[in-house]
């Protein structure tokens, strides 16, 4: 992969606008779900609240800070990027992933031809771009139909690309919905491809598991609850209930910590205020009273919105045990990341060992990504 280098020097990053930061470009026809996806994944919006989103008419771009900083840009469906007047170079330069959202509940033939047109126009000039195709809104499809639809979409796109003689395209398909964890799983995988250090991290996680008696270990971004790396054996098991459970485990840890974080009385209120503001916006957008869950802070993860205070003096740690003998660990790392690990083994000294090794891991990360 050639996505340039990642600067560790934050001043360079801050001063240079468009540079080597990898870019994720979201495309797809309007009402496909692009804005919803951005808001649910990167702004902790409740899925049901996305019905209040207004159609996006201008390209948007925002910076997401995580292990590596990257930008997420949304290209509204009504803009024809293949128009000769459009500055393609500016749009596609630095793009690591082009995420194309296909509304699987809608008639998608036209969408697919639009997708293929885009690939045809972009690929020859930017062959390193990953084309990540989201077969989206699958929550509305029955299980059988979901499989058929996914097969059909995949088949059509692959056939069309072959017909055009484009056989080297890096294309990937994901079944997603904002109403379950699938969108987080898909975005985790998409983002991992843009971080060149992931193989190193995986090896580090492997060693951690081996020496600590852990079964699975993931490096999560606490705010977005995407994971940027997993140990090599767990990586195959992406999806399923456990990823969602890990995300819930992060939620409870951060939420409880926030409640008892001493200066938190201010931070807690401020967060609910932002929530209220956001909801007022919803109300205004619709011109009537906000319906349903939009008007209040919703469920536990609302408090996690603010994430951890950057000045958190000591790493946040959490251990939780389930009745079936599973133990979960959370250990805060650097740059808003945390390791979430699982073990089913018992051992009196295990806790101290886990602590010790996780601290070592954190120091290791600090060496690779020095704190500015």
């Amino acid at each position: 992969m050639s996505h340039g280098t990642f600067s560790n020097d934050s001043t360079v990053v801050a001063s240079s606008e468009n540079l080597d930061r990898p870019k994720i470009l979201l495309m797809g026809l309007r009402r496909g779900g692009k804005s919803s996806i951005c808001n649910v994944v990167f702004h902790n919006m409740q899925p049901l609240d996305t019905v209040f989103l207004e159609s996006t008419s201008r390209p948007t771009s925002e910076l997401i800070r995580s292990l590596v900083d990257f930008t997420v840009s949304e290209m509204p469906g009504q803009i024809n990027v293949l128009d000769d007047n459009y500055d393609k170079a500016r749009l596609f330069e630095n793009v690591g992933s082009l995420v194309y959202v296909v509304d699987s509940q809608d008639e998608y033939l036209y969408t697919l031809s639009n997708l293929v047109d885009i690939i045809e126009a972009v690929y020859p000039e930017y062959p390193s771009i990953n084309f990540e195709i989201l077969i989206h809104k699958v929550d509305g499809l029955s299980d059988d139909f979901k499989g058929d639809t996914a097969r059909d979409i995949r088949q059509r796109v692959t056939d069309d690309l072959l017909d055009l003689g484009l056989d080297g395209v890096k294309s990937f398909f994901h079944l997603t919905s904002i109403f379950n964890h699938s969108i987080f799983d898909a975005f985790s995988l998409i983002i991992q491809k843009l971080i060149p250090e992931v193989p190193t991290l995986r090896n580090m996680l492997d060693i951690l598991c081996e020496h600590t008696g852990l079964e699975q270990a993931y490096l999560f971004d606490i705010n977005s609850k995407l994971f940027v790396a997993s140990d090599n054996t767990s990586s195959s098991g992406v999806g399923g209930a456990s990823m969602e459970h890990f995300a819930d485990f992060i939620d409870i840890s951060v939420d409880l910590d926030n409640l008892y974080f001493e200066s938190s009385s201010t931070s807690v209120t401020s967060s609910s205020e932002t929530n209220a503001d956001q909801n007022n916006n919803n109300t205004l957008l619709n011109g009537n009273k906000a319906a349903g869950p939009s008007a209040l802070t919703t469920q536990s993860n609302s408090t996690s919105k603010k994430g951890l205070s950057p000045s958190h003096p000591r790493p946040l740690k959490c251990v939780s045990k389930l009745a079936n003998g599973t133990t979960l660990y959370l250990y805060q790392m650097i740059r808003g990341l945390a390791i979430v690990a699982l073990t089913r083994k018992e051992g009196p000294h295990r806790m101290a060992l886990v602590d010790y090794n996780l601290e070592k891991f954190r120091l290791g990360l600090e060496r690779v990504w020095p704190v500015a």
Partner: protein
Amino acid sequence: MAGGNSNRKKLLLMGRSGSGKSSMRSIIFSNYSAFDTRRLGATIDVEHSHVRFLGGMTINLWDCGGQDVFIDNYFSTQRDNIFRLAEVLIYVFDVEAWKKGDPKKDIDTYLNCLRHLKEYSPASKVFVLAHKLDLINSTDREETYNGIVNKLVELSAPYEMDISYFGTTIWDESLYKAWSNIVCELIPNMGVFQKQLKNFAEISDAKEIVLFEKTTFLVISHVALNGESEEELDPKRFEKISNIIKTYKQSCNKMRSQFSWLALHGANCSAYIDTLTTNTYIMVVMPRVDEEHTEEGQNALIMGNIRSARDWFEKVELMEV
């Protein structure tokens, strides 16, 4: 008072159709999420649920369907059956319907309930929930709530009943606050719990201790060792914790298992959540140990203290002390 029947507590849940009665019941007692309540249909007649609670107590919840046909029956043919031996009436007003429409009929029904209650169960306690507050614009919420409460206080004064008011919605922790107050009303030896928790806090040097009922995760009691720190903390933290842990418990269930315990070491506190008795969970909040000490030592201490307190609290729960 250890007789069989006195351990059944009859709670009436009433209000007009669609006000949210079955929704709150399902969230508090049946592990529904707020989203799940959209599936509920109108309740036909009365739905009974029996919930095992502290000290061998059984909560017997009468969810009274709110359509006119049923309500008419409650005040005529069924009135004896409905209103006799009730400990608590929970009356749910839909604030949006109140604001948009004419609340007169709803108010009349409520006052009619009070009248019957006064006759059949004069010692019972009344909780009024001004519900669905999320549907009121956040800037008007307080005013709307106060308006409703003032009106009801005025109208119900002649009945001279013991009435408490709460503003609620299923979309935040306010529901837990109201229901925590409701169930606490049923626990006769609250003072003993309180005293024992205080002891526990002193022995462990804890900043705060919270006691939860196990299935609902409603807060039964809490103590703080030094009052000063309390002011700085979020006053809504108790109901928030109920909400947070309940969500996590549901997540554990999705993993086909159950929540057992949790130890968190946060910015400047550590929190331990563990089973205390058959029907309770305890949360102990400690200052985080300083850099020289290990969390493991504190872990061992607190988990040990919880273990040794179990038998004693088991007795408190069964009212044997």
